[in-house]
């Protein structure tokens, strides 16, 4: 039940942000943010290799994952906002740099401690069966924060999505909206890491919105469809795992959402 609450919360946040992600063509930003978590963890593993007292203190790894992901997200956001680099290029740069740093940290830890550092598999593939009550509560809080922010700033966010330059000339604080959206995506990606891992977290932020845009051209309806697809996907993954424990929850969720995307695509084709 706790896990389902966490999945549902993350799915809800992802579904709402997904429409922004698809519109702004930020599909790979969550991939970049997720992998930046590996870079953060790499720093923690190097510290653990240097200071034996820190070994097995998982909270240190978690803090560094959050710091790494948030720092990378902000850097990507600032670089793209200032037009020094396109969002695409900044994602690519931070993704490879942080992954390389993470692997170096892992190797240093293995050389020193002769074992795999804790959390390596979790970052890449997720570990939903290890979700605690406190983690679920964090997911709920972040989902609420995402919902409240998007609802409260909907007119500014829509103006930003229509065209950032036009929004700026209309007096919208575009920098604030840009960075706020990046932070919301970073927080959602970070909590999504334990559910599906950094390799698949992009799917949660792309598939619901992409499917919804295929099925409806009206924003309220697109939002409802996006939420429905995310929640159905989350529930399907959970049920599949409950029915056959060999099926991992995260990949099952992603495949369920992909199946719904295919149905949406076929429905659109038929409707034409």
């Amino acid at each position, binding site marked *: 039940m706790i896990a389902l609450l966490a999945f549902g919360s993350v799915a809800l946040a992802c579904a709402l942000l997904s429409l922004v992600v698809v519109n702004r063509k930020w599909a790979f930003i969550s991939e970049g943010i997720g992998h930046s978590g590996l870079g953060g963890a790499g720093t923690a593993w190097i510290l653990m290799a240097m200071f034996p007292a820190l070994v097995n203190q998982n909270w240190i790894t978690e803090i560094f994952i959050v710091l790494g992901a948030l720092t990378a997200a902000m850097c990507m956001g600032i670089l793209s906002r200032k037009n020094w680099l396109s969002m695409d290029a900044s994602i690519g740069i931070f993704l490879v740099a942080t992954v390389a740093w993470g692997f170096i940290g892992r190797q240093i830890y293995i050389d020193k401690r002769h074992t795999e550092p804790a959390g390596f598999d979790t970052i890449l593939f997720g570990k939903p069966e290890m979700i605690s009550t406190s983690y679920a509560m964090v997911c709920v809080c972040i989902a609420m924060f995402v919902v409240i922010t998007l609802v*409260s700033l909907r007119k500014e966010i829509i*103006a930003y999505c229509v065209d950032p330059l036009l929004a700026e*000339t209309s007096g919208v604080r575009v920098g604030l909206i840009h960075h706020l959206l990046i932070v919301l995506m970073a927080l959602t990606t970070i909590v999504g890491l334990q559910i599906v891992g950094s390799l698949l977290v992009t799917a949660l932020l792309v598939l619901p919105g992409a499917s919804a845009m295929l099925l409806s051209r009206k924003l309220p309806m697109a939002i409802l469809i996006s939420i429905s697809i995310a929640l159905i996907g989350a529930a399907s993954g959970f049920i599949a795992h409950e029915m056959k424990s060999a099926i991992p929850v995260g990949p099952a969720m992603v495949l369920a959402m992909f199946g719904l995307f295919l149905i949406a695509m076929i429905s659109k084709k038929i409707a034409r």
Partner: protein
Amino acid sequence: MNLLEIHNLGFAFRDKVVLENVDLSVQVGAILGIIGPNGAGKTTLVKLILGLLEPTSGTIQLNGVDVRLARSRGEIIGYLPQTLSIDRNLPIDVRTLILTGLAGRTGLFRSVSKDDHAFVDRLIDEIGLKDLAHQQIEALSGGQLQRALIARALAARPKLLVLDEPIVGIDRRGQEEFVTLIQKLRAELNLTVIFVSHELRVVASLSDRIACVARTIHYHDIPQRMPADLMYKLFACDLATVGIQGGLPVCEDPNCDGHTDHALKPNANQNALNIVELQPAQSESSRPR
């Protein structure tokens, strides 16, 4: 009384000087047409006027206040960009698109007032999109989308509307409709308009005064007084594209890219001035000076 005053404006991008010594003023309720060859700094000037760029030197004042300060105080300048870069896949209707023009004026966490909603409905009526108000933006034609974006630019009731190359790719009939629409909106909303374009004929028919920009201001007066030799100098390679037929001296520069400021040719084409006078929007005496 001037709404906009520009003094000794300069702007450089890294080491490249784009604009220098620009002096310009626009009276309240007037339409200023800005013309100039490609690469002359017209769009840079627009971005400086909008407060999106910081001048290297000089000042731009809107109602006596620095334009960037005015913007930070909530003063909004209506703007229609050169290219309609908006994402048509966004699932919103025309009315919602126009309402986004109010996002900055309304302020964070506040809803659009009933009065503003009523004004947006009036604008939709004025631009002739009443029947399409609830149509999705992806269904609009280029001209309809442009009109919707003009309404969007006016939603916050700006005193100044800046139109950057709004008639590129529009046929002659569309241009005439555009001129009529801007004149109508100007009269009904008491707008001051800055209109940047390559289309000399349309600029002349719409503008009370024109300013020729090519790094600096070469001319700033009513269209009818613009010297033909200056026009030829600025548009040597572009004149053929604005409707002058026959007898036009061809630019003889083998390296001509059509965008550069060419050397003045003596006895240049006198037709250029006639083109400017082709369709005056109103009698000269009725134009604000």
